[in-house]
């Protein structure tokens, strides 16, 4: 089941709230170390291949930082 998702993260819009990280069922989102333009540590996807494209991270992100795509049957 793993590996059908693709994330696009607008890193400069992320406020580092951590909600996506907490709720990702695969635990593959992490805090990035460098500050972004806004002064926050934005999120980043650690293990790209593991993402299922479930969309939960985007569902919980208050700032629409994450766009999720999922492979259609692929």
């Amino acid at each position, binding site marked *: 089941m793993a590996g059908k998702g693709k994330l696009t993260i607008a890193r400069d819009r992320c406020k580092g709230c951590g909600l996506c990280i907490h709720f990702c069922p695969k635990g593959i989102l992490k805090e990035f170390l460098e500050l972004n333009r806004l*002064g926050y540590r934005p999120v980043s996807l650690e293990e790209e291949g593991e993402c299922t494209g479930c969309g939960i991270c985007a569902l919980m992100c208050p700032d629409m930082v994450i766009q999720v795509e999922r492979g259609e049957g692929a």
Partner: protein
Amino acid sequence: MEAFRVIVSGFGGQGVLLVGQILAYAGMFSGKHVAWIPSYGAEMRGGTANCSVIISEGEISSPLVEKADALLAFNGPSLEKFEPSLREGGLLLMNTSMVTGEPRRRDVRSFGIPANDLADRLGNSRVANIVMLGALAELEPVLSFESIMEAMRMVLPERHHHLLPLNQEALKAGAESIKEGVGV
């Protein structure tokens, strides 16, 4: 100097307003007139915060700082925003742990203080603001070390007074960093 005017600016949460208040108290304890003005607003919390302080021998007419004698810039946006407000020959203190850019003004005296790093070294990154204050105190004789300590006792709630030694360390670290000449 008849009056000393400071702007302190950074992200919310960096203790910017507090540094300004300590400055104001220190000024008052030295028998001066003081005025402290915070930015206030409905902007995003965690957005920028700043305050200005005037410490003056005489009565303060306009409480606004039009031209600052010193700027404490805790982050990049603050540097950008307030650099133009410094008077010629003024003091520019940058927290180089957060400010990555370069100052554009060449007609001021610039100093870089790695305040967060120094604070981390003291075991508490939250005293980065006090490190910056220490640097300023080192540079600007209007503020005695003692009056600043007294001010901190005033500003810190009683239950946090056990942190006073740490803050004293932070002050010193800031002062040291200047003495060591980290000036840009």
